[in-house]
């Protein structure tokens, strides 16, 4: 607080100037200016004092009557607090229950997923055997064609192909396809007119018979079968083309027309029942 330096020092406070703080702290001087000695009638005094008592009492009563309301509000709030606490506890319990249920369902899901997986792998296995699923693997590729001179004796017949395919099965083939037509349990190799049909599709020579199996044993075992010997004879006597090649990777498509008409799934006995 920078005080102004006047040459005359601080101006003397005027007696009329009202200093707020001094006025507040100074003793009440209402009575130091008595104007009128007044009558000594105590009526006004009594009235004022009665009024004072009345005021104080009423104000106190007012505050007291307000208190029960506050108390009631507080009680209501406490009650609601208790209710909410109970609800929180109940909800927590329900959350726990739900968590347990989730865990149980998850375990069950894993279990069923495992059984689904087992079924799927079994289905794949069966599909590979039955021909309903595409398969790949090492195998042999047998190329058969009519003889170059076109004589009837050098023509490959449907029975020759049947024999060859049966020979391949015999030699240990796991899946066989002729010119990309997968052989299934319902496949037929027949002659229709001039052409040989497999799965009702006409084929044109050369016939490529692909078989998946053990590449070490399959060619040799094929040549030991009747089919192998027959084709070896046909090759040497009539010029029929007959080549056996091993392939590291063959891919056979899924067979078509695999529809079950009469067979139905038998209920599989489950373990533990």
């Amino acid at each position, binding site marked *: 607080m920078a005080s102004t330096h006047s040459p005359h020092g601080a101006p003397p406070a005027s007696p009329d100037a009202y200093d707020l703080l001094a006025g507040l702290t100074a003793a009440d001087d209402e009575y130091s200016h008595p104007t*009128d000695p007044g009558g000594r009638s105590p009526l006004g005094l009594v009235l004022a004092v009665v009024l*004072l008592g009345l005021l104080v009492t009423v104000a106190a009563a007012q505050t007291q009557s307000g208190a029960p309301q506050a108390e009631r509000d507080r009680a209501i709030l406490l009650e609601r607090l208790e209710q909410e606490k109970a609800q929180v506890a109940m909800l927590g319990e329900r959350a726990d229950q739900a968590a347990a249920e989730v865990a149980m369902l998850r375990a069950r899901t894993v279990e069923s997923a495992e059984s689904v997986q087992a079924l799927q792998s079994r289905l794949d296995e069966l599909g590979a055997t039955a021909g309903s699923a595409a398969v790949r693997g090492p195998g042999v590729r047998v190329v058969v064609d009519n003889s170059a001179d076109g004589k009837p004796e050098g023509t490959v017949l449907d029975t020759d192909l049947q024999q060859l395919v049966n020979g391949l099965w015999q030699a240990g083939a796991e899946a066989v396809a002729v010119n990309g037509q997968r052989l299934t349990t319902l496949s037929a190799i027949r002659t229709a007119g001039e052409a040989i049909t497999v799965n009702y599709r006409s084929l044109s020579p050369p016939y490529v018979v692909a078989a998946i199996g053990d590449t070490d044993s399959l060619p040799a075992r094929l040549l030991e079968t009747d089919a192998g010997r027959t084709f070896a004879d046909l090759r040497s006597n009539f010029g029929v083309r007959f080549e056996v090649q091993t392939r590291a990777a063959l891919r056979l498509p899924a067979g078509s027309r695999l529809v079950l008409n009469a067979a139905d799934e038998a209920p599989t006995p489950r373990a533990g029942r």
Partner: protein
Amino acid sequence: MIAVLGLALGVILGLLVEPSVPAFLQPYLPIAVVAALDATFGALRAFLDGVFNERVFVISFVSNVVIAALIVYLGDQLGVGSQLSTGVVVVLGIRIFSNVAAIRRRLLHA
């Protein structure tokens, strides 16, 4: 003596009648009480000083109460009612303390 009797009469009256204060007057009641207390302590001090005057007391009592209530009412209308209430209570409280201090000096010489 008559003052003490009057005070007792007022308290008893308030307790017996239990007048219900109109809602619009309720905010001003505590302020009026403080103002009345201020006037009362001023009167007590004046009495001890020997300069008590009934007329001054009655007029200061009534005017204190009315003015305090009016100030708060004005504050309410201006939206600063609670602040003005605080101000009035502070001012009257300081006056009450200074009066009581004077009374104490007079009575206990301390």
